[in-house]
């Protein structure tokens, strides 16, 4: 990495906790023995804001957070293939609003589960290798993107079961893609990152007709003219190691590698020459003992705070949009020692869930101010 020039230094957050909010463990579940790789709240449908899903091994489980730290199991799904190991899960829905749980993992098959009928809706076969992350388009929750070890990112329509676009090829990733995210307001834009140490921003503006077509497609999904998007509109080399999580924060991007920090940066694109541009690193959020890969962070609904676990079972909650960044809280528990693969923040950030390598789910609740 080149030395940051004077005048463009990032603002680095201080690790002294502001103790703005206090969290306490209110529940701890042992789901199974296999590691849990993902946990996510449903932000798609306000009925289910307190419903979350986890994946681990060949299992997808749906829970509900209740008052007083209680967690209820609502549904549990098991893949018949014992070798399946789900890595990621996301909430989506049909065009009429039927809630779907979408999960993917080592087999490379994306499972779309109809949660309101408790049965499989569709299985997407196409990825040539494991699926590392699935995300849902918040404005059109029938669209999902998946990041895979096969070096591609794919856009799917869960309603019709169509693979609309494949983001790979000449300008694509050169190794596993580990993370992908939809821009919150620019519906055409996604960002992906992976083992080739880069973050790439893609635009599907020119291909939007295909996206629209996918909603009205009545023929077999396999006959849909899937398109390749071969060139990203922006490429950022910010990290010097695997980039395992990236999320948009408005027009900025929050990404992390294995360097014990999350980086907030702004992609500055050159309109005339796509693929080129500069990166302005704005802020850094230190996260100690976070030097292993496949640790993902999460926001609350309003992007006020971000929570991330580390290798030793601790959680760091940052006020993400303040400058300089403020550490809201540092959560630790004597028994939480296993690496935390992902966290989930509830709608208002008052509840934080963490899923761990040892198969446990921890629930932390904010202690009321008074």
């Amino acid at each position: 990495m080149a030395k940051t020039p004077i005048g463009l230094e990032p603002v680095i957050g201080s690790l002294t906790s502001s103790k703005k909010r206090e969290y306490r463990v209110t529940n701890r579940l042992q789901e199974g023995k296999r590691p849990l790789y993902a946990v996510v709240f449903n932000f798609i449908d306000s009925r289910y804001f307190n419903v979350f899903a986890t994946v681990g091994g060949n299992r997808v489980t749906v829970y509900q957070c209740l008052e007083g730290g209680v967690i209820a199991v609502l549904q549990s799904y098991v893949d018949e293939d014992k070798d399946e190991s789900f890595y990621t899960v996301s909430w989506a829905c049909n065009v009429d609003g039927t809630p779907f749980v979408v999960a993917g993992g080592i087999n490379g098959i994306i499972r779309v589960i109809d949660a309101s009928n408790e049965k499989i809706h569709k299985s997407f076969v196409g990825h040539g290798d494991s699926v590392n992350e699935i995300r849902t388009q918040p404005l059109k929750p029938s669209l999902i993107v998946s990041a895979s070890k096969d070096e591609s990112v794919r856009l799917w329509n869960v309603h019709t079961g169509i693979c609309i676009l494949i983001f790979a090829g000449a300008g694509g990733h050169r190794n596993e893609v580990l993370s992908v995210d939809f821009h919150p307001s620019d519906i055409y834009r996604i960002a992906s990152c992976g083992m080739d140490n880069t973050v790439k921003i893609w635009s599907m503006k020119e291909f939007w007709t295909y996206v629209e077509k996918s909603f009205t497609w009545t023929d077999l999904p396999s006959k849909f003219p899937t398109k390749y998007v071969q060139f990203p509109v922006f490429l950022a080399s910010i990290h010097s190691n695997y980039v395992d999580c990236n999320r948009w924060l408005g027009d900025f991007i929050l990404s992390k590698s294995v360097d014990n920090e999350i980086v907030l940066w702004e992609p500055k694109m050159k309109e005339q020459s796509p693929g080129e541009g500069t990166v302005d690193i704005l802020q850094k959020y230190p996260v100690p003992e976070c030097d292993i890969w496949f640790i993902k962070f999460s926001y609350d609904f309003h992007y006020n705070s971000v929570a991330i676990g580390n290798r030793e079972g601790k959680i760091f909650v940052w006020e993400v949009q303040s400058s300089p960044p403020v550490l809201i809280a540092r959560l630790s528990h004597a028994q939480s020692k296993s690496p935390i693969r992902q966290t989930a923040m509830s709608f208002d950030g008052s509840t934080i869930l963490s899923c761990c390598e040892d198969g446990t789910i921890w629930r932390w609740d904010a202690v009321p101010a008074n």
Partner: protein
Amino acid sequence: MDDDDNNDAGEWLSEKTRFKMAQVEEKTVSSKEILSVIDSLKKQVAADRSLSVKKRLEENSKKLGGITNHLYTLSNERRSSWIGDTDSASDLLTKRQKDALGMQNGIDLSNGDDDGYSYQEPSTAVLMGSSIPVKNAVRPIKLTEVKKLPPYTTWIFLDRNQRMTEDQSVVGRRRIYYDQNGGEALICSDSEEEVIEEDEEKKEFFESEDFILRMTIKEACLSDPVLESLAQCLSRSPAEVKARYETLMKEKDVEASKNRDIEAQNWNSFLEKDLEAALDSFDNLFCRRCLVFDCRLHGCSQDLIFPADKQNPWNHPDEENAPCGPHCYRLVLKSERNDTVRSPMNPEDKSNSSSDGVGAQISSKKSARRKAKSSQSESASSNTRNLSESSDSEIRPGHEESSPTPQLSPSKNKIAGKSGILKRNSKRVAERVLICMCKRQKKMTASESDSLASGCVSPTDMKLRSNPRKQSEDATSSSHKDVKSSNTGRYRKKDWTLKGVQGEVPPNETVNDLALTSSNDFSIREEFVDENLGKQELSDDNSWKAIEKGLFEKGVEIFGRNSCLIARNLLNGLKTCWEVFQYMTGADNKLAYHAASGVLSLLEGCSKYDLNGAMGSNEVRRRSRFLRRRGRVRRLKYTWKSTAYHSIRKRITERKDQPCRQYNPCSCQTACGKQCSCLLNGTCCEKYCGCPKSCKNRFRGCHCAKSQCRSRQCPCFAADRECDPDVCRNCWVSCGDGTASLGVPPQRGDNYECRNMKLLLKQQQRVLLGRSEVSGWGAFLKNNVGKHEYLGEYTGELISHREADKRGKIYDRENSSFLFNLNDQFVLDAYRKGDKLKFANHSPEPNCYAKVIMVAGDHRVGIFAKERINAGEELFYDYRYEPDRAPAWARKPEASGSKKEDGAPWSGRAKKLA
């Protein structure tokens, strides 16, 4: 950085400075003070930075607020649409939710029972509050198994090979390899090889750095210690800092006038751009081998090779007589002629009278000319003729015959030598100059007669030629633009003019075989027409823009001197046919004068200056372009070293141990000698070379007739080459025999066709991709094929051996490699780009074989059937790994079954650890 902040800071600082200046008059400021100044500035910058970050985050946050509110509304809409739905009871998720809530309330009410899960019923929610594993507490819903695909990396289909682009190189890049079985990450590079070539790029100065620079110097004056401490602070050299400061100061002054300049420039740039500049991009982007723009195989910055053999200009016999439109020169000429036939005082009349065909007049003039020919001018013309002979390719044999035996004169040798040097210098320059010479020489013969004829007839000519020296200088400056016109075309044109005017066609004057002697006769008459027309034209010249002139030149190259075609095809909407004709004839006359004066000066011994001038300017202009191009061409210097060759690659070693040699067209303009790059490289010359067809190093193709080029008796086949319709005598592609309608292929029985052009014509079999019976993916055949049938091409990215070594290391770890040795320079990599045949598996007893074949100058890999293969059979071929490098599954002894993917246990990514 915010501008306002900067300005504020600047004001604040300058005030401070003034204060200081008043206090301390002395110019030298101690280093401590300098440092403190810099420090304070740095702090200022840092504060500005954090302020601006804060500002931007706030702005972003505002936007985000709106976005999340919108999303929240959406999520509420989803809810309400469901609540409105009467069917909501059928939503199991909602039901479970309610159950759970009810249960919790029940618990709360019962107020004692803390074991929620004791309430459990099948298929309702379970409350969890303890450490009993969830998986045991609920009955899971089964997701039926779906068969997964064999693993593959997303790849792009290629129907022809592509050269790797630079940004896809893995050389010099760190790649961390994650071993999914061991759970460890390895940095996949050799420390000594991996010298990270961090280009010492000139780092740009950022705005903030400029600010510090400016303010510090403003405050502490420009002195060495100041520069030094600044350099230290900005981690640059003092010289750099100083240079930057100077440019900053300049920028300030320039800034104001800049904007106006830019505007003016934009306005002019289009009009002043000449065709050369425009064609530069054409030269760079158009591939002359594939005849496409932006060719991905040969790259867009390949060396330009121009063939020594020139094509005759395009001619269209049908259009000779018909006027091309209302502004056709034929119509105009005709009308003018009609107007002026009876007015002897009109200068046009001269031409008319002469062209009206008074035979006696012509013949007398002719004889007069011959008699009066001075020995001086004769030697001059022979001079130039000889000169053009030495630059062989340009002159047609018929023409040479008609020229008199050359008489050597001292000055000629010099010029000939000069042109020789130029030829070597750059083919392009040479080409231009040759054309020039040729033209000049033609003109000279013309002008000779012209001068003789006009000497007695037209006094205006004398006037025009009164200042030969000046003319010659003009010629030098403009020759490379105006000289462009091909001689054959010129004479032909005159023919047409005559035909159009007189309706009388001499029988032996067919378009191209115009004997010089006869054309001389006409040229006498024609010169008058030309001159007279030209005179009024000369002043109009200025109205021709550079781009139009350039287009005209190209037009003459393509169509000959046919104003109709030029106007219609190249200057449509810009110039009419008549205008083009005028310009053309005007240019001719000018040339005639220039040439004549050239002769004079040549005789005076000044020719050297004259020609040098012309050539010199030409050379400089072209050279710069050449240098530019050369800079962009990436030359592959990698040499073939079998020892440095590690990774597993598919190879072909059946006949040769030596790899094929990559062909690169040579740029020889004469028959290839020892310097020929093809000869040095050990390849044959091909049709893409610059050398003439007579080159001894050319591969001459085959003459096979009935054998259909299917055996080693065919020289092409024997040399592992496909036949080339351009080269081989009897190998051609037809759309029928001419009698049948177009597009109907010839019948197989009676009309033999070459069977050695399958790659070129893409006559491949349908290959299907499926699950292999052996391992992973496999390639299958859709139809039955016979022995030695061509199945398809193995396409991929062309990468260097160095790159292949690097990539191979990564592929070897994954135990699946799509590398294929192509020749001494390139390896094919089908990992990310290729076609379905890349999935054909290895077998020691294969049913196919691969063969590297030269197709139109490129090496390509064809897959052929080794035996008869039935539809639906899986394809295998022997990868021919080097024995000691072959992976375990490809080694011969235990090769009971073929396996490409070593059955790597899919136990999974046990741990995701760095």
